[in-house]
């Protein structure tokens, strides 16, 4: 049904992948870490793109999935000794998945602005719970833990170095990208896109729109939770700040800046945003958001398709 992507797509894909894999070998330590962070935030933004770009639902609550992924990983790493990487990922996904089921059940009955507000409110509910439940979540201080070693296929691997962690994240992100790309091109993804284009008509054709939306939210939530897990493992802590809705706002910014409905656009948006922030905060400290907010607002007005919007067609083939 879908035409096969042209070889040029895979050539570019391989080149970008090779560049990202080689990046930590040539970059100084600070930028190594930075590159890894871009990949993680990009993964979070891509998960949100399933909703924003493909289903036409703007989620302002992705911090809840991300944060629960972090706290899920934290739960595994704090309670289970010795710390296990895969158990952390499993717990993180379970945490985010639970929240996603909850949000999906309630929020998908609402549309447009109401969906955006309800996701925002749900994420704030989880924020307040995590912030005030000090005995379990550590409250404002969050939880700290040690980094689990990399184990693969039962082999007891070495501890992560920044370079191997970058490769680990790159592998997870690449697999996630390919999986999400496959999903968006599947018949299921086509239904999502038809919901974006015309919901009443999709319903009239006979698709159970709510069910498709629920699955889309859950899928999106799982990948967001995966990003949260990776971030927790990288930074060895989980903090309530990452459940706060400011993070959700940043996710939306990444999508708009990079280009919604492209899957790679959010990565470009995350890179653009984080680089701008890094550059601007050097001499503007915390006021970097003033020029950044202006740039964002101007992009919403004049470049609504984002940085990679011009390549949308080519990227979705």
């Amino acid at each position, binding site marked *: 049904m879908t035409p096969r992507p042209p070889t040029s797509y895979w050539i570019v894909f391989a080149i970008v992948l090779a560049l990202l894999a080689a990046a930590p070998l040539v970059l100084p330590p600070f930028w190594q870490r930075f590159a890894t962070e871009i990949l993680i935030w990009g993964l979070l933004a891509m998960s949100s793109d399933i909703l924003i770009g493909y289903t036409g639902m*703007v989620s302002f609550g992705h911090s809840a999935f991300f944060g629960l992924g972090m706290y899920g990983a934290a739960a595994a790493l704090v309670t289970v000794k010795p710390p296990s990487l895969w158990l952390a990922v499993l717990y993180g996904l379970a945490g985010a998945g639970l929240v996603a089921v909850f949000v999906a059940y*309630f929020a998908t*009955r*609402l549309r*447009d*602005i*109401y969906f*955006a*507000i*309800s996701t*925002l*409110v*749900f994420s*704030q*509910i989880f924020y*307040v*719970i995590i*912030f*005030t439940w000090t005995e379990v979540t550590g409250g404002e201080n969050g939880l700290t833990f040690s980094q689990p070693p990399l184990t693969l296929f039962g082999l007891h691997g070495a501890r992560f170095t920044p370079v191997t962690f970058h490769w680990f994240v790159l592998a997870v992100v690449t697999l996630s990208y390919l999986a999400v790309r496959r999903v968006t091109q599947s018949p299921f993804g086509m239904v999502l896109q038809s919901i974006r284009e015309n919901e009443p008509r999709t319903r009239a054709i006979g698709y159970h729109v709510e069910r498709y939306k629920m699955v889309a939210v859950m899928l999106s939530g799982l990948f967001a939770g995966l990003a949260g897990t990776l971030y927790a493992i990288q930074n060895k802590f989980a903090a309530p700040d990452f459940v706060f*809705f400011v993070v959700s*706002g940043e996710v*939306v*910014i990444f999508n*708009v800046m990079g280009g919604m409905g492209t899957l790679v656009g959010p990565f470009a948006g995350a890179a653009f945003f984080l680089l701008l922030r890094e550059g601007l905060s050097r001499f503007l400290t*915390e*006021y970097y*958001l*003033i020029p*950044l*907010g*202006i740039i*964002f*607002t101007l992009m*919403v*007005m004049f470049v*609504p398709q984002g940085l990679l919007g011009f390549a949308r067609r080519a990227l979705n083939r």
Partner: protein
Amino acid sequence: MDQIVIQTINGLVNGMVLAVVASGLTLIFGIMDIVNFAHGDLMMLGAFVGATVLGITGNFWLALFVAAIVIAMLGVLLQVTTLRPLIGRDPLTTILATFGISLVLQKYALWQWGPTVRKISEPVSGQFALFHLQYPWYRVATAILAGLIIGGLWLFLKYGKYGIWIRATTQDRVMAQAMGIPVPLVHTAVFAIGSAMAAASGVLFGPFAGVTQTMGSDFTLRAFIVVVVGGMGNLGGSILAAIFVSLIEAYAALVVSPAQAVIVSFVVLVLTMLFRPTGLFVPTPK
């Protein structure tokens, strides 16, 4: 028992302030389909402007007036430069654009006024005995003043010539245009009125808890809850919902900590959206 009475009065006072914020937001939504994410930040800026004017002149009422005028002009500027070009685009674009504006305004306030809490001193001093508490008269005065502002707005919308223009534009934009109402001007004016009301409530709220640059996002969220619970674009519903939500939060604060009491209003919001998406305080649509 006395706890309940005290919390009822607290809830009513907070509810009146929130009603002023929310009625500005609902007016803007009702007429332009714009979900203004920067509304709370306009309130916060209003409070800062008020605090500054109060610091210079020492006159609270002048501060209230100047803050409303300054923020109304800022509202006009924002509407003309950012929101007017977006008319006719997906309503979600306006959420994104006002979200961007909100970021800028918040950090601007931090840059201009710093991270410390500004205190606005009360224009009405004195307290009266309420059970074991000395309850400040200012809170009661605030509720009355907020009621006056809302009442004024209601009278203006009901009987004023321009108020009728606004209501006509809310009902049917195209028809209003055809009858010779300058719809783009009405949009700008409504945004200015909404901004002025946000600023006024910011100054009124200032003496309660002090002015910080983060109070904006808190109030944006609360105003959203109120506007949805009351029915989007429904002025009377928003006012009732503001009082309702504030009362519920005040009672909840008796049982759990105030930080957790917020969850109760979130739950009210979600239940409303699921079962009465047109709003709690409107007749069931036919």
